[in-house]
């Protein structure tokens, strides 16, 4: 199994509070991704990173920001959580050169915004 951990694994928070989710990898892979999983939508890309301080927006980035100050850590922040951000969040990693960029997924974080 790829060495990917996510913390916390479960979180309940109130509307309007800031929340940060962490993805940590031990594989030294260059590419990292944040997805959210919702019933009827599958997984949708929120943000991704191609390296330290190199991030970009995905399909559903509104309301989210990310940071990557170290290769191994990719943080997802909800500046002011809303109920629509209740979801399961998955981090994934891949390595350039492993054509076609096969992605490996973490165990997920279940976030509930009340």
């Amino acid at each position, binding site marked *: 199994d790829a060495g990917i951990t996510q913390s916390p694994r479960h979180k309940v928070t109130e509307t309007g509070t800031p929340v940060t989710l962490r993805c940590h990898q031990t594989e030294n892979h260059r590419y990292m991704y944040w997805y959210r999983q919702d019933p009827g*939508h599958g*997984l949708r890309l929120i943000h991704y990173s191609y390296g330290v301080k190199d991030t970009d927006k995905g399909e559903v980035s509104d309301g989210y920001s990310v940071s990557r100050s170290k290769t191994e850590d990719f943080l997802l922040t909800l500046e002011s959580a809303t109920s629509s951000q209740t979801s399961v969040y998955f981090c994934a990693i891949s390595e350039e050169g492993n054509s076609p960029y096969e992605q490996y997924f973490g165990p997920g974080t279940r976030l509930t915004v009340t």
Partner: protein
Amino acid sequence: AQSVTQLDSQVPVFEEAPVELRCNYSSSVSVYLFWYVQYPNQGLQLLLKYLSGSTLVKGINGFEAEFNKSQTSFHLRKPSVHISDTAEYFCAVTPYNTDKLIFGTGTRLQVFP
């Protein structure tokens, strides 16, 4: 733009019966194709992938899938399912020369004894 359609949101089947999970995609460029499996309360695990070559690909746990370019399909099959195959299955594509995975909405396979 690309899209992936999994028409069956749920597929109930009895143990030891065969199963087919359907996946169709739409893309203006060539794509790589994947099936991922998600067991309850876990992350996604790669089941199999089609990159090139033989259109019939075999994956883990006895699953296989066939790429049909003319029908833009990549259906997943298993000749005899087990209770342990109960999970959600996601079809996904990656356009050539990108690293983006585009997922279908998933099919929940429920295997009954």
